[in-house]
């Protein structure tokens, strides 16, 4: 009687396991159950579009002093840092290199901004006391 009880218990455990498996949706490899609720592979439709910096589509040239002058201080002619201009790494480096090139070649002033460019729109996030 004791042995019967044990095998009965084993059988009970096995059937419980199978039942649990089926209710969770897990089926064995050899099963012919249709899979309706498989995930469709697609890109995240709610993904925000990639935002670029202001100069993403613009080529930077040392001859274009008007563009370069937008990233320097009007009072001292110093080049603004990345936290002020908001440019990405590549463009900030290009601008910085182009400004220094223009300085050495005699295209742009070192200590001030050309008065002709003082009225240009402000790209950099810096507020001057006027």
């Amino acid at each position, binding site marked *: 009687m004791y042995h019967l009880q044990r095998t009965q218990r084993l059988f009970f455990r096995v059937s419980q396991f199978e039942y649990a498996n089926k209710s969770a949706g897990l089926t064995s490899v050899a099963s012919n159950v249709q899979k309706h609720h498989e995930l469709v592979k697609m890109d995240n439709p709610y993904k925000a579009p990639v935002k670029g910096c202001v100069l993403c589509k613009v*080529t930077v040239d040392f001859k274009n002093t008007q563009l370069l002058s937008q990233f320097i201080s009007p009072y001292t002619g110093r080049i603004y840092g990345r936290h002020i201009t908001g440019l990405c790494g590549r463009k900030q480096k290009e601008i910085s290199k182009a400004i220094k090139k223009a300085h050495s*070649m005699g295209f742009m002033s070192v200590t001030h901004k050309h008065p002709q460019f003082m009225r240009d729109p402000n790209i950099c996030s810096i507020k001057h006391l006027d």
Partner: protein
Amino acid sequence: MPRYELALILKVMQRAETAATLRRTVETLMERGAVVRDMENLGERLLPYRINKHDQKHRRGSYFLIDFYAAPNILTGLLDHLHRDVDVVRPTVLKNDKETSKQTCCGPQQ
């Protein structure tokens, strides 16, 4: 394709003298085996700062841009020659790689 670009700042002179200087410069280039592709006049303007050259203080200058193809070994000789020219205020030769702009930037790609 343009390999080098010569940004030339000349002294303000009469048109005939400027033309003669440019002719001299281009002939020097060609003598050394360079092929001149393009020449642009960026106008005469006030220099961004006073430049001292050949015992003169220059305030105004005429800007020219010359694209040319050349062997790299002539450049030092060429710059030496241009520095000695009395009418030239500031010569600068730079490399010009127009094709290597295919790096994708951070922004939205099209």
